[in-house]
Every structure is written in C-alpha cells, then in structure tokens.
C-alpha cells in the first residue's frame, strides 16, 4: 500500500476533532465545578477550528484515501461545515439549559463531540465498513446522551428504547451489508457500484441485501413504519439532547442514504425507488396527521420530524442530481429549523419547568414579542410558508419529483403538507391570540438571545436569498 503524510491532509478535520476531544476530556478532569465553562469554550473553539480546517482542505475534486475507506468531496465538505455550525448553535442552547437545570457537566460536551466525529466519518466514508463504524460511533454517543439525566425515569426509559431499537437497526444494516458483500465481493462503494454494473441488476441476493439496508436506514432516519422510537426519545430525553438528535444527525443520515444508495447501489435505483416511495408517503401521512393530536411540543416536533424525513427521502428517490441537491438543501434547512425550535423551548424553560406543553406557549407574544417572532419564523418555515426558507426547500423537492414524472407522489406530499400547516399555525395562534397563563419574566443569557435571534432571522434571510445555500448544495453534486 502506498502511504505518505499527504494522505492525512484530507482527514485533518477528523484528526483535529479527535485530538481535541481527547484533550478536552483530560482537561475537564482537572477542572472545578466553577471552571466548567472552560470545557464549553474549548468545545466551541474546537468546532470553529474544525470548520476552518474543513474549508482549508476543501477543493472541487474528489480525493479517496486510506485504500478506499475515506472520501473527501464537495458534498462531504459542505455537510461537515453545516454539521459543525448546527452543533455549535445547539451547544450554545444546551449550555443555557444545563446551567438552568444544574446539570452542567463536561461529559455532555465530550459525548457531543464524539457524536460529531461519528457524523463526519459517516459523511466522508467510501466503504460500507467505515460508514457503519461512523454510524455506531454516532449512535453510541447519542444513547449515552439520552440517559444523561440519570435521575429522570422517562430519560432512562427513552435511552433503553433507543438503544434496543438502534441495536436492531444496526443489525439489519450489517446483515444487508453482508449480503451485498456476498453478492459483489467488495465493501468499497465504487467497487460495489462497478460490480453491480457488470453483474446486472436482477440479482436476488443484492436486492435482498438492499431491503435490509433500507430498513436500517429508515430506522436511523426515523421513517414510518420504523419511527416508533422517535416520539419517545424526543419526549423522554433532556431537551438539549432531543435538540442534538433532531438536528445535525439528520444531515449525517442524509449522507448515509446518499453514500449507500447512490454512491454504492445506484444501479439498483429502480428497486430502492419503490421502497423509498412507500416509506416517504407513509412518513408524510402519519407524521403530519398524528402531530395534530399531540399536546407536548417535543412530541409534536418528533412527529413533525417524521414528516420532514419523508420529504428528504422524496428528493433522494427522484434519483437525479436535481433530486439529491434538493434533498440536501432540505436536510440542511431542516437542521437549522429544528435547532431553532428547540432553542426557543430551552430559552423559555427554567428550573423545574420544561416549557414542553403547548399551553405553555399561550400569550408568548405579550411576554417576549421578539422571541415569539422567532418562533413564528420557525413555524412558518416548517410549514413551508413563503418567504421563509422552508418554502423553497419544499418547492425544490417537489420540483425534482415532478420532473421525473412522479406527479402523484408530489400531490400526496402537498396534500399532507397542507394538513401539517394546521399544527404549526396552531402554535402561532396560541402565541399571538391567547392570553398568557404564566407571567414569569423571560430569562435567558445574552449569548443565547443573540444566537437565537441570528438563527431565527437566518430562516427568513435564507428564504429571501436561497441562492447562497443552493449553490453549496449544487456544488456537492456538480
């Protein structure tokens, strides 16, 4: 094998973040309770430097190193940068929550950084082996984070459910990978793709493996009928963990789908398109309809996530570059929206009060007009109302689906989106037209307020100027 130190250059972001997380872990050991802020600051600095390094090593051409285990291309660069940005924002809100609830511990940030490393590995893996290991790294960190509040019964229950179902999903995925290895004799995506191209697509073993791959993928994305863990985990996990699970890992799950289905098995597009159509339609239907019945805003957001996952799958199943671009745009947009919605929940919570009931949002406008406006942006964006960015995300996906002739599917998507608008608008109605039941003054630290404002207005600004984000996504599939 050929190896020199230049091989390591594309991997620098991962190497840096791993080094930093080990350092932070050791530094955190020697800190007093009062100095815990240092851990948080170091975490944010390492993420910022990781973004910088990712941009530094980025280039338009594709590099594959480590004997076909690692790939660096424009898609991985773009997704890594957004994963880091969204996680940084999520950590700002998390710090607010942890301080308010006296749970400020270093292991939250250490596990979070490990999860980010796992996502980055997934985003730039070029073989089934490394993508599986990245997924396990991400999942293992998330299981531990869900159980972060050890005295909470719902938290432990959610962690247990998440762990069990996650383990089954990983098993399914591994079984599918072993079938594909059996059929092609390779685990690298490009080798698998060429083996599929030569051996033909009417191979029972390949399709059998593909079914298991898609099941594993649907579990991780949270698509119906493999969504059962999502509402319980969102509800039971501490709010910052629910926020973390609901935002950046969706980008990694998108990369998982693209790497496995498009990079590896694009030859079987006809087969996986049908499977994804079923998953996407069911997700949009069940997510949007069941969300209406929720009274807990975290559960409602979980079902809303399920419906958004349907849209992300819709773009992928189109099977064209346009579809992948729209899907990536949707995933990034969704990450920004999700982190903002949970940020507002955290900003309104205080010790002993989680602010997770819909009724807690009554009359929010009178208590804090500015943050009620931010919540309005998020809800409009999630519902897909112009001029917010959520509208363009839905528009691009629908456009891609219609251009491949799946007009019926697009109509179903629009139909269920309209149903979904109801529960988003209901929150706006509660905030603006109902009397507040709780007059406790709104308290949040200044950095949370600033970041929340930027995050909320970014939904509007990206909606007015979607070209900047779109150009990043277009470059990824150029």
């Amino acid at each position, binding site marked *: *094998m050929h*190896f020199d130190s230049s091989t390591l250059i594309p*991997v620098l972001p991962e190497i840096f973040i*791993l080094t930093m997380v080990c350092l932070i*872990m050791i530094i955190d050991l020697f800190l007093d309770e009062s100095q815990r802020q240092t851990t948080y600051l170091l975490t944010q600095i390492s993420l910022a430097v990781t973004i910088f390094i990712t941009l530094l090593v980025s280039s338009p051409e594709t590099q594959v190193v*480590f*004997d076909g*285990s*690692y790939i660096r291309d424009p898609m991985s660069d773009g997704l890594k940068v957004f994963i880091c940005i969204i996680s940084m924002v999520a950590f700002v809100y998390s710090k607010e929550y942890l301080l308010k609830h006296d749970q400020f511990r270093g*292991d939250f940030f*250490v*596990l979070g950084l*490990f999860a980010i*490393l796992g996502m980055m*590995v997934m985003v730039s893996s070029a*073989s089934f*082996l*490394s993508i599986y*290991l*990245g997924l*396990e*790294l991400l999942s*293992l*960190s998330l*299981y*531990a984070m869900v*159980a*972060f509040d*050890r005295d909470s019964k719902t938290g432990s229950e959610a962690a247990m459910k998440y762990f069990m179902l996650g383990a089954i999903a990983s098993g399914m995925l591994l079984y599918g990978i072993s*079938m594909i290895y*059996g*059929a092609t004799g390779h685990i690298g995506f490009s080798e698998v793709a060429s083996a599929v191209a030569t051996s033909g697509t009417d*191979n*029972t*073993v390949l399709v*059998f493996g593909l079914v298991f791959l898609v099941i594993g993928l649907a579990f991780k994305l949270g698509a119906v009928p493999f969504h059962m863990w999502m509402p319980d985990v969102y509800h039971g996990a501490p709010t910052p963990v629910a926020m973390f699970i609901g935002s950046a890992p969706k980008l990694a799950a998108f990369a998982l789908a693209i790497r496995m289905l498009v990079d590896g098995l694009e030859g079987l597009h006809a087969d996986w398109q049908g499977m994804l159509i079923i998953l996407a339609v069911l997700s949009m239907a069940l997510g949007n309809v069941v969300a209406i019945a929720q009274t807990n805003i975290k559960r409602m957001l979980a079902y809303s996530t399920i419906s958004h996952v349907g849209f992300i799958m819709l773009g992928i199943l189109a099977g064209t570059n346009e579809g992948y671009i729209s899907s990536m745009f949707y995933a990034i947009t969704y990450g920004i929206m999700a982190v903002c919605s949970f940020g507002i929940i955290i900003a309104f919570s205080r010790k002993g009060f989680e602010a997770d009931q819909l009724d807690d949002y009554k009359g929010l406008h009178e208590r804090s007009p500015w943050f009620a406006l931010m919540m309005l942006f998020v809800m409009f964006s999630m519902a897909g109302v112009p001029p917010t960015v959520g509208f363009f995300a839905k528009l691009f996906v629908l456009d891609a689906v219609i251009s491949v002739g799946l007009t019926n599917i697009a109509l179903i998507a629009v139909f269920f989106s309209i149903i979904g608008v109801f529960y988003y608008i209901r929150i706006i109605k509660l905030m603006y037209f109902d009397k507040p039941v709780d007059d406790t003054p709104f308290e949040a630290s200044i950095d949370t307020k600033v970041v929340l404002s930027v995050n909320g207005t970014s939904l509007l600004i990206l909606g007015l100027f979607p070209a900047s984000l779109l150009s990043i996504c277009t470059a990824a599939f150029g």
Partner: protein
Amino acid sequence: MTFELFLFYVFSAALLYAATMVITQRNSVHSALFLVLAFCCAAGVWLLAEAEFLAIVLILVYVGAVMVLFLFVVMMLDVDQASDRAGYMKYAPVGVLIAVVLAIELMLVVGPGNFGLDKFASPIPHAADYSNTKELGRVLYTVYMYPFELAAVILLVAIIAAIGLTLRKRPQTRYQDPAKQVQVKAADRVRIVKMATEKKWS
C-alpha cells in the same frame, strides 16, 4: 461423506440446538451457558473454514472474558422471571410468524441457487505453513487502518459512556481519603490535656 463434512454437520446441529436453547430456557444462567456452547460450536465451524485466528479469538474473548462477566452479572441481578414472561404468549404468534417468513426467505436467497458451487468455485485449501493470523495482521494495520482506528474510538466512547452513566458521587456515602489519612499526625488524633491535681492521694 468426508470427516470434515461430518464435523461441519455436528457443529452446525449443536450450534442450532444451543442457539434455540438460549432463547427458550427459563433460567438465565442456563441461557448464558448455552450461549457459551453456541460460541464454541461457531468457533468449530470457523476452524473448518480455515479462519483459525478468529475461531481462537471467539473462544478467548467471548467465552473466556465476555461470557464470564455476563454470568457474574446474571448471578448478581435479581431477575423476576414471572414478570419477564408476562406478555410472552401475546407476542409469541407474531414473533413466530416473522421468524418463519424470514427463515424461508433466507433459505431461498442464501441457498445453492445463489451461492452454489456453479456460482462460486470452492476455495483452494491453504498449505500447512499458511498463517491466518499473519495475513489478518497484514491487512488490519495497513489497508484497514482507518476502520481499525475508528473501532478504537468506538471503544473509547463505550468506556466514557459506561463511566458517565454509572459513576456518581452520593453525598451520603462515607468514603476514605487516603491522602488525608497519610498526612495525619499524632497531634491531630490525640489531645493531651494537662490538669492540675484536684484531690490529694492518701
């Protein structure tokens, strides 16, 4: 039937029997012991497939370390078997149905139709001085270096997660601080009080 084929059938039959017993035994200690048997049989099958190193590692790591630990945990826990069984019969039909469907699908796919000798030539047996361990080591630290490092990171996360979830300081727990114990001086422990004599001894 060659002797190797005979051994294969023996190991496979024992493996299937042990695996079935693992999930049907009422006593969890018995289940764990049957799992040990299942691992040993699987190791036998792997030996027949010329994967000596993996077979030995399976016995050393899983049987020798993991299962022993597992048995300890099972013995420590007070498992309420009656409540574990509740709902067993309710879900059994669905479970059996799924298992049967999956088994039939598997037999159809992983049968000789797709993996027969006409599709894949039978592997050539290696020479007696062929070292399976050496070959594995050669690719593990070169071609598969990146996945190898990732696996190490996953183990690190597992350690952190386990410690993070179980280690907690309880304020009511009494514990010794060796540093303080070592530093203690006689003066800290015994206070000699000088007193004037109050009553004359007679």
